[in-house]
């Protein structure tokens, strides 16, 4: 391993791997940093299919989609530092300097001419949508429930209420059902579902799971572990309508209420945050106008519907980062 690279990619998910491959193809020296113990990012827990239809014209599962990229990364001889955490990222004159840590290497430094931020996104929590009532165990984000079931083989509950009709929520409704849990229903505060129609069809309708539109969870009930939720209808201004409350017994509440780009590592750089997407403002080459040489792609840039487009954004960022590094060298 060197300690200077043309392009350093932060995050080995679909965006990061695509950008690394493109940058490598264009002749740059590339390193990928990954905080988890393996590349693939969130795809590793998305064991359902439907990935890659645009890119490969095939219906792949998340881990299969990831596997294709990992093979290419291997073939291209691109280094990935897994279980490595980025502690600090600053720009010093013409290059980026980072401090990282891993159990294997301890605290160490790297320098890069260009940096691609492909750190993905995180889920909004129960606190961020202002759920009230008790605070028992048994409240999960959909992604957390997915990690427990798919990666670790544990059930978050046996009788679930799902709040929010985002795609992961719908997919988890099916997944829980397949694993023998009962899903009481999916509640969506908006008047239309936020997930794809096909997921309503194949995840809810196939298993007769009810979708309640214009209805939300107003209160959580249960001291130790969740025992029930109170659901209520809302008016056009999202205010609860009195008299429409109902108590739904359950032993877990799963939230699929939105994703936010995770770009906290950019706090020391003068990037401008895009109020709408939660990512940073970039030009159409995915570069920050305020921090030349800093590129952002994938869900860290804004939350995409399809992984195929995530990879595509990675290719754009990787290509531009490679060009930037080449020009910087001259």
């Amino acid at each position, binding site marked *: 391993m060197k300690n200077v690279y043309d392009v350093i990619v932060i995050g080995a998910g679909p965006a990061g791997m695509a950008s690394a491959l493109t940058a490598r193809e264009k002749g740059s020296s590339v390193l990928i940093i990954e905080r988890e*113990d*393996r590349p*693939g990012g969130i795809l*590793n827990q998305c*064991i*359902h*299919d*439907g990935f890659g*239809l645009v890119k490969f014209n095939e*219906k792949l*599962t998340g*881990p*299969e989609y*990831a*596997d294709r990229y*990992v093979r290419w990364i291997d073939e291209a001889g691109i280094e990935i530092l897994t279980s490595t955490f980025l502690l600090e990222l600053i720009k010093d004159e013409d290059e980026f300097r980072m401090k990282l840590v891993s159990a294997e290497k301890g605290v160490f430094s790297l320098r890069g001419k260009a940096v691609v931020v492909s750190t993905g996104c995180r889920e909004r929590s129960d606190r961020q949508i202002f759920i009230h009532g008790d605070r028992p165990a048994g409240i999960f984000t959909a992604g957390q429930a997915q990690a427990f*079931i*798919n*990666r*670790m*083989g544990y059930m978050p509950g046996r009788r679930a209420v799902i709040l929010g009709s985002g795609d992961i929520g719908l997919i988890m409704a099916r997944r829980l059902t*397949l*694993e023998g849990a009962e899903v009481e229903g999916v509640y969506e505060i908006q008047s239309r579902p936020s997930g*794809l*129609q*096909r997921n*309503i*069809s*194949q995840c809810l309708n*196939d298993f007769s799971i009810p979708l309640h539109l214009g209805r939300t969870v107003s209160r959580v009930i249960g001291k130790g572990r969740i025992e029930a939720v109170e659901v209520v209808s809302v008016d056009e201004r999202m205010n609860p309508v009195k008299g429409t409350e109902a108590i739904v017994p359950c032993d877990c509440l799963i939230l699929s209420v939105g994703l936010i780009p995770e770009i906290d590592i950019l706090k020391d750089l003068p990037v401008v945050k895009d109020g709408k997407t939660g990512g940073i403002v970039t030009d159409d080459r995915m570069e920050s106008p305020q921090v030349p040489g800093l590129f952002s792609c994938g869900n860290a840039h804004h939350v995409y*519907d*399809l992984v195929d487009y995530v990879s595509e954004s990675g290719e754009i960022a990787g290509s531009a980062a490679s060009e930037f590094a080449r020009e910087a060298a001259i």
Partner: protein
Amino acid sequence: MKNMTCIVCPKGCSLQIEEKESGFEVRGALCPRGERYALQEMTDPRRTLQTTIRTAIPGCRRAAVRTSKEVPLGEIFSYMDAIKGVILEEKKECGSVLARGLCGSDVDLILTERLY
């Protein structure tokens, strides 16, 4: 007439199917795959199935798997039971066949992840 959402691709076309003497007539599909889906759905609805199985590999509690082809929707829980009986004893390549002829059919079980 029956309405349904095509699940073949993320576009999710709204399909209308009408039974005529000559057979089913499908409207609303933007591609031939949608039409095929609708016909299949009317006669024998099928779904791909993905889940996980237990493993005997240290540090790897579950491995992701899928069926090699679509299985009858009505039998999906029988397939789940059959799949859950399979245990991955050792590391294999992503794409390996882990079991053949699930539930007496010609459907195989495929490993869908790279094991580290």
